[in-house]
């Protein structure tokens, strides 16, 4: 990558970051809503930790994984809405009239979301530990956790980008949010697969990619280092990225058809 391209991407990333910071309505719910859900679940389902075969030392340490995953959903909504606004206001056309490459456009837009994801990860970890969750893998585990959080928001951010380029309006992108929430709930979010009594629910949860991400996150909190769980979690994030990167580029090509 040459100096000019680096400058272009870093300036677009700076804009993405500034824009994210200046939208409290985007940042505050992305932090508070997952923590609110975390608090309710941790308090209300605490007794679940007493079930035979429950793998975590306590329910708090089990459910702390959920906010990290929810950050991905907020990445879809936040990034998608920002990009959709750029399309609606014509800002995307302004960018298309500069020598900025398509790759630069996508990667630059992602910066604010990734930065927010890192911030979310640090806050969730701090709140979780303060509330009494344990992180068995220690500081190295915290670093891996943040890296995994980046992988999650990047992957899900690409879904938001694809939707924004495809639909071109914020309402359509926001419409994805509840759909993705269904995926979240049909996973091992609340209970391990073994303890889910409904066969259909257990079957879905066992094969839901979100469950693999939960397994990776949870492996850092209890049970010691688990290379397989981490590889599967990063693998799912990578697979989502690999599927949605070409879809995002294809949608971008259809949206910006400059000669």
């Amino acid at each position, binding site marked *: 990558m040459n100096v000019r391209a680096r400058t272009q991407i870093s*300036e677009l990333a700076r804009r993405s970051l500034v*824009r994210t910071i200046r939208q409290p309505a985007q940042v505050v719910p992305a932090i508070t809503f997952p923590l609110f859900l975390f608090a309710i679940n941790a308090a209300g389902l605490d007794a679940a930790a007493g079930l035979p075969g429950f793998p975590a030392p306590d329910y708090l340490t089990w459910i702390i994984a959920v906010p990290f995953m929810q950050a991905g959903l907020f990445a879809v909504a936040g990034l998608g809405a920002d990009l959709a606004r750029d399309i609606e206001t014509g800002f995307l056309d302004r960018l298309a009239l500069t020598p900025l490459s398509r790759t630069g456009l996508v990667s630059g837009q992602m910066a604010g979301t990734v930065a927010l994801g890192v911030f979310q990860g640090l806050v969730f970890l701090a709140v979780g530990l303060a509330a009494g969750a344990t992180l068995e893998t220690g500081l190295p585990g915290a670093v891996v956790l943040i890296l995994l959080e980046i992988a999650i928001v990047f992957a899900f951010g690409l879904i938001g980008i694809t939707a924004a380029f495809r639909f071109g309006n914020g309402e359509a992108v926001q419409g994805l949010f509840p759909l993705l929430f269904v995926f979240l709930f049909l996973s091992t979010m609340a209970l391990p697969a073994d303890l889910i009594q409904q066969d259909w629910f257990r079957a879905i949860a066992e094969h839901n990619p979100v469950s693999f991400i939960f397994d990776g996150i949870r492996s850092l909190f209890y049970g010691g280092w688990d290379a397989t769980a981490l590889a599967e979690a990063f693998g799912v994030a990578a697979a989502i990225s690999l599927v949605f990167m070409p879809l995002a580029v294809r949608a971008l090509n259809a949206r910006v058809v*400059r000669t």
Partner: protein
Amino acid sequence: MSSSPHAASIEVEGLVKQFKKGPRAVDGIDLQVAPGEIYGFLGPNGAGKSTTVLMLTTLLPPTAGSARVAGWEVATDGARVRESIGAALQEAALDPFLTGREHMRLQTSLHGIPKAERMRRGDELIERVGLSDASDRKVGGYSGGMKRRLDLALALVHGPRILFLDEPTTGLDPQSRASLWEEVERLSKEDGVTVFLTTQYLEEADALANRVGIIDRGRIVAEGTPAALKAEIGEPSLEVVPADPDRRDAMSAVLQRFSAGGDCVHHEHGSVGVRLKGGDAAMADVVRALDADGIAVASLQLHAPTLDDVFLDKTGRSLEGSGDGEDEDDGAYVGEQRQEGAVA
């Protein structure tokens, strides 16, 4: 490909845009714009103005025909064209969360202006468009006129030879409009920038443009200097408001007898207009005829030919409001079609 220097800044031959399952938005237009000229592209909503601008700025591939901008073919040398042009498209394309100065920083960086020059260039343009005091405020708090001025400044950061302005004053108050006209004139006269300006405002084309192309339903129906176009019409127009609005049709029937050609036009504000055969001298006859039919007149105005009269003469319709309710706005339609990559 075609990098040879051309006498004209913009050369268009048989340019067509056919949308998939949609209208032929641009239907074989030809035009030439000389260096330093302000070319006014006048037409109602849905006429094909924005589609033409999007094609000339490389943001929409033409279906047929050719267009060269700054000597480069838009269909094949898009990157070269974009280096040579600046564009302020419909609606000021700004980020409400960034300040004016931050917009400048981003735009100068994206255009590859050396770091040492970026701030100087940005400040210079911000000052030129009169936004120095507001440059550190977020754009979301700017007025429509301020946004348009910033939009114009952003289009100029890389010193383009050709500037495309798509309805730059739509929705602006008269003072903001005059301020923008002044800057566009200065760019053309002092900096030699070629300006391709679309508008649906007659007075804007009249006041600013060296030459005007009038477009309707994708075709150029008239082209020339505003003075020459009006001279072609010759006869003045008479606009009459009946005292009793229910007598508009009766009045129209009387006025039709004095028409120099074409039907009477019913304006939205209640008047009836007609191009008057015989000019000023026929006025007395019109008044007598209306009186004979018992039609009382609330007001009566005779005015020299305008560009609206030219449009009326060429299309049989008045430019004012002629796009309303007919088609979707040109830009809005294009927006919907572009997402499908809908090039037939």
